[in-house]
């Protein structure tokens, strides 16, 4: 037992190495991992997660398009009036303006509006904004994050993630990572504002046609899955109970009370009167473009008239292709983006999986070569295998512990992290050299006491050096400088693991070596 007590540091290292091995290799170990992920997945040896640089995919970081006027005394009742008036003044879609009583701000989400135009528009409505700044409010931004989150979930992007990132004293942007999409695909998913509106187009007394909006985005209760049916591709949708009655009444009173006639080819969205005489169409637009123009069927028309629709407010939006149906489905489900993302000022990274996986292998080779180089230098320097070998083994066990750690917390590894691993090998061996020299080069060690005192002296230097490395790296953890925060985190965790676990264990190993010699 006393052997164990004296060598508890080695015992701790061994235990932690075993724990790391479990975290790395046993399927389903990391919390949150599903049993078919990681080590259990086909062709994967470990539970390690790889980021897009090492497994492919796209990351885009972009600011939100917009300008905010602060200190605008918008009354509680006036929100929608201000919105409409400012939008009309600026010649933008009302969805691109947002007035808020709560935050006393008016925001405009359009690229081509200048600050002075915006100020003039507000002043024309009798408001005196205190300041006008680039960027949008926190509320808008967090809604954009939610909406993007839903959108990437709906579009079956596996493992995609969305985050708001604030630069200290600077702008705030949205960071989106999609492991299985290239840039074009991801941008097209995100660029879609996804505003869906439903119109009824019908003739009025003088023979011309009018277009009346009958439903908007918020009035849908549920969206079905795009599907191919007998009548062609379409998306079944359910209307919100509160809106169903008004919708049905409007439809019925305007002649949609039985089957209607509608030739989609005649319909011109900017000129509804292009329809012939008695044609009545129901039109759904996505971002202002009609995606669905169709007559109302006999059954649906009757249900509007006799009130059945209110009890079962469901109809099918039929589209001309499955692709279009899916697009409508996606837009309806993910809701619209409150404000567009500014892809002209983005920062992006996109890697083909083959190239990225090549990096995995190549950086492994780089790491192994670096370890060999270190081993050769250490061996040449000490000329004693029993000193050099434990050094290299200890440094490697540090890397293994670190791998276990990142695997356990499911931290996605990128190239910068691997550079961090190599840096950890570097500092690790440095510290082992300090310990080794302190103990071996100062004359014979006769007793455990002498050993302890030398070890403690060595440890002071190691602790001071570790503290400095941590201080030097910590700004990178806090600052959103690309992938470098990951590099810094790996280095800091590595240094801590080294100081707390592996380097003390190396001391014990050495003590056994030198004391046994006598």
């Amino acid at each position, binding site marked *: 037992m006393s052997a164990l007590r004296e060598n508890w540091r080695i015992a701790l290292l061994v235990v932690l190495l075993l724990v790391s091995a479990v975290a790395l290799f046993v399927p389903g170990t990391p919390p949150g991992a599903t049993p078919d992920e990681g080590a259990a997945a086909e062709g994967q040896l470990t539970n390690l997660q790889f980021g897009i640089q090492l497994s492919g995919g796209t990351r885009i*970081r972009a600011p939100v398009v917009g300008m905010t006027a602060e200190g605008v005394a918008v009354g509680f009742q006036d929100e929608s009036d201000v919105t409409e008036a400012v939008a009309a003044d600026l010649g933008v879609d009302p969805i691109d303006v947002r007035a808020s009583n709560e935050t006393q701000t008016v925001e405009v989400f359009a690229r081509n509006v200048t600050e002075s135009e915006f100020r003039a528009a507000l002043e024309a409505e009798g408001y005196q904004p205190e300041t006008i700044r680039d960027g949008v409010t926190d509320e808008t931004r967090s809604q954009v994050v939610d909406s993007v989150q839903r959108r990437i979930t709906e579009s079956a992007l596996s493992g995609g993630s969305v985050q708001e990132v604030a*630069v*200290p004293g*600077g*702008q705030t942007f949205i960071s989106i990572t999609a492991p299985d999409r290239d*840039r074009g695909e991801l*941008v097209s998913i995100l660029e879609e504002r996804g505003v869906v509106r439903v119109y009824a187009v019908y003739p009025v007394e003088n023979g011309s046609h009018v277009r009346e909006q009958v439903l908007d985005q918020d009035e849908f209760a549920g969206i079905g899955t795009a599907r191919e049916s007998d009548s062609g591709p379409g998306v079944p949708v359910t209307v919100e109970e509160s809106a169903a009655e008004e919708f049905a009444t409007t439809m019925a009173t305007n002649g949609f009370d039985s089957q209607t006639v509608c030739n989609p080819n005649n319909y011109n969205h900017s000129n509804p009167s292009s329809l012939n005489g008695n044609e009545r169409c129901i039109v759904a637009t996505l971002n202002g473009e009609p995606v669905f123009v169709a007559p109302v069927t006999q059954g649906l028309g009757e249900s509007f008239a006799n009130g059945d629709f209110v009890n079962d407010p469901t109809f099918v939006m039929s589209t001309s292709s499955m692709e279009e149906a899916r697009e409508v489905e996606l837009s309806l489900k993910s809701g619209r983006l409150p404000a567009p993302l500014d892809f*002209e*000022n*983005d*920062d*992006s*990274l*996109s*890697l*083909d999986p*083959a*190239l990225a996986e*090549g990096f995995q292998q*190549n*950086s492994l080779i*780089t790491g192994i070569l*670096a*370890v*060999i*180089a270190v081993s050769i*230098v*250490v061996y040449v*320097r000490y*000329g004693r295998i029993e000193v050099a070998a434990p050094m290299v083994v200890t440094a490697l066990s540090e890397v293994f512990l670190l791998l276990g750690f990142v695997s356990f917390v499911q931290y996605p590894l990128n*190239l*910068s992290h*691997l*550079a961090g691993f*190599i*840096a950890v090998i*570097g*500092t690790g*061996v*440095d510290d082992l*050299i*300090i310990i080794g*020299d*302190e103990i071996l*080069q100062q004359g014979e060690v006769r007793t455990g006491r002498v050993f302890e005192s030398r070890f403690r002296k060595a440890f002071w*230097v190691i602790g*001071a*050096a570790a503290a*400095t490395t941590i*201080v*030097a*790296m910590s*700004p*990178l953890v806090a*600052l959103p*400088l*690309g992938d*470098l925060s990951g*590099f*810094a985190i790996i280095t800091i965790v590595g240094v801590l693991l080294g100081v707390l676990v592996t380097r003390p264990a190396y001391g014990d190993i050495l003590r056994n070596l030198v004391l046994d010699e006598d």
Partner: protein
Amino acid sequence: MVEYEVPEVDYTQYTNRQLVAIPLAVLVLALAVIGGWWVVTGAPVTYGIDFTGGSEITVETTLSQEEIRATFDEPVSSVQGIEQAENRYIITFESSDIDDIRDSAEAADGMTVLGSGSTSPIFGEENRRLAVLGLAVAFGGMSLLAFVFFRTFVPSIAIVISAFSDIVIPLAVMNVLGIKLSLGIVAALLMLIGYSVDSDILLNNHVLRRSGGFYESTYRAMRTGVTMTVTSIAAMAVMAVTATLFGIDLMADIGLVLVLGLSADLMNTYMLNVTLLRWYKYEGVNR
């Protein structure tokens, strides 16, 4: 048996002035290069696309370099082949309009886009500000710790000057070699702060806190410190070379800057710091 011993330098042969002259001259030269660069180009170092905005794509193609350049409407800053992967090139552009660039590449016959990265000028500017901030905070924190550890002016300031010089020298060399500052290099500079301080702390600790004469303590610290630095240089040199062959820019940058900085550290620690300590030990203390 191959075995190397760190050679014992006979410091008594040299005066303080002689010893300090070389590292100070190198530091002044480095500062002059950086200052001159600043005057001529408007920036202390040449910024890469991480800091100015721009794009980079990796393509696989059988086209020649000239044909690659001709493929794009956007001005091409550089086309770099990758040693270990034939027909694979990294092309950089000043424009950050990555969509147009990808479109041109994808439209070209026999060119496949494997990866792309872009930074808009706005992000570049932000990165520049953050990098300076990060370096300043790290350097300030390190200096503070140095003073906390040793609580005397000369040994502490020796650590700070040496770390400063370790950062400035690689930056000057980068300018001369035409290497542009990237985010990876910023990380390397921060690591350099950590590495640089290791051997300085070791030296100060041996000289100030141990029994034994100045020269004996210095030699012991040197034996350990040089081994440490040489080991790190070996690891980083291997990383720089292999990563360059594989076209992994980030690792290559970190490796190269650390090799430069650690080499500078050998000179600074064992010429500049040792001298400052000797002055402090023999003359400064008695004042």
